């Protein structure tokens, strides 16, 4: 029919299934590497992973991270090594959840959780300080009163790291390359990124 073919296409669409998810009413399961709000992880012995190097702040394209490092107090060190994150703030009015901070972090201190349903009544609340970001003694994120949590959102806080070949190199599949976490120990690797092996895992 030439020019008129398009009319048939649009008309047949009337009888097709709708693709819309009506968000607040129904919620789709999140992908395993979903970028939500951050957490600051701790080692299995309770020490903080953050060493206050400010690489995350330097790489952040939205400039939403503010970090000040300080020397560890000798009597009661916060992190293993010389320095620790003395001030750590993320402004969620600016954060674009690109995960560059997570990739930049040399100690896997900062990762992103699945939590994204939060809103604030004032600008000060939008700035998460260290007290709100560091995981609690079970290794779980601390729940803020303005956050909406769903089952399982709080446990999968470092899902992306379990990709065993984060640089896309299949040689590293199933070779664990990160340190243990408080509450979890060394997490088991993801299936990997080899073509075909990870299919269906993201839903």
């Amino acid at each position, binding site marked *: 029919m030439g020019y008129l073919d398009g009319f048939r296409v649009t*008309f047949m*669409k*009337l009888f097709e299934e*709708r693709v819309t998810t009506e968000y607040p009413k129904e919620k789709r399961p999140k992908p395993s590497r979903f970028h939500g709000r951050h957490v600051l992880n701790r080692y299995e012995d309770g020490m903080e992973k953050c060493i206050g190097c400010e690489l995350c702040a330097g790489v952040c394209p939205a400039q939403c991270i503010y970090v000040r490092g300080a020397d560890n107090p000798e009597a009661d060190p916060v992190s293993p090594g010389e320095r620790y994150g003395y001030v750590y703030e993320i402004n969620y009015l600016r954060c674009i959840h690109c995960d560059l901070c997570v990739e930049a972090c040399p100690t896997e201190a900062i990762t992103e959780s699945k939590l994204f349903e939060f809103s604030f009544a004032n600008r000060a609340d939008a700035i998460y300080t260290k007290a709100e970001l560091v995981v609690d003694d079970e290794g779980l994120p601390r729940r803020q009163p303005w956050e909406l949590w769903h089952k399982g959102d709080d446990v999968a806080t470092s899902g992306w790291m379990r990709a065993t070949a984060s640089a896309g190199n299949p040689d590293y599949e199933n070779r664990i390359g990160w340190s243990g976490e408080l509450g979890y120990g060394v997490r088991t690797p993801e299936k990997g990124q080899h073509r075909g092996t990870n299919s269906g895992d993201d839903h």
Partner: protein
Amino acid sequence: MTGDPLYLDGVDLTDVGITIVKVLVAFTFLLIATMFMVWFERKLISDMQNRIGPNVAGPWGLLQTFADGVKFFFKEDLRPENADPLVFRLAPYISAVTAFLSFAIVPIGGSFGGDSSGTVTIFGRETYLQVADPPIGILLLLAMSSVAVYGVMLAGWASGSKYPLIGSVRASAQAISYEAALGMATVVVVVLAGTLSTHGIVAAQSGGFSRWFLVSSGIVPFIVFLIAATAELNRPPFDLVEAEQELVGGFHTEYSSIRFALFFLAEFMNVITMSAIMVTLFFGGPAGPIFFGMTWLWPTMWFLLKVLAFLFVFVWFRATLPRLRYDQLMHLGWKLLIPLILFWLMFISLKELRAAYDWNWVVTYGAALVALAIGASLLVVALRAGDRAYQEELEEV
């Protein structure tokens, strides 16, 4: 004698009352129909794009337009510093008022054919089911759609801003180009009906499907009218006037609040009016089989059904066709539609003349064919030359 029988024996208070009631009913009907047209369009276009569309305000989102209207009322009304204050404020009303006025001539009911002449009896008075049946009839539509261009043009000009100005310049060029085709398609119907009055046009189509001007004018005028009407309404694929991707919002970029709502209202109201006019001109208006009981209701129902079908078609156009480029728009209008409808008009006129004066078949159509051949070849030569010049121009660019 033509004209509404209501006024034939002098005008008294009852006549005035009936007229006022008719005006109010038409006004309210059109407003509510426009409200649901906006909803209908949004819902249907969503369906054609695998989406859901408005579904929160009221059942199936029916009150979405109402909610939008309330929102518009409470929005701040901005006027750009460079705008011409008077004209800027006047333009939306020109658009809205002309949209209302053209609907007045549409017969929306009454049974035609046989011995009934499309009248109904209200309060013991015979009258037509249309607000007005002026002797100039369908010319009012053409006049109003021409005046409506002023609304768009003045809005763009008075905004004191460049995109609205470009949009309104496009609008005037487009409207002038397509009004010729629209007018001539209407003239074909007028020639066949022998009257300008819309009531007369509907009456001339009474008596079965084959009497509809869609059939007896040979479909071509209808198609030309449909395309020209779409262009006249500035609807996709002819929405160059608004062209969001190029002109922000076209002529209404600088409008906000209730002034913008008036343009919006006028646009959708024009769609309904144009559909109603097409039903009147080509689809026998309220004609249709009348079954049991409620004999006065059936014609109105048929009329509404036909209008609804056209509303569907307009939304369907929007869902399917991509916007034309500006030169394509002009080519389609001037080089295809106008010559086509011009030939068709002459042919139909000749046919009517031959029937009226009982001219010889062979001589009439032979002469017509010769004239047609000469005209067509001249036109082809002219178009070829024009195309060549155009191609050269394109290559230079």
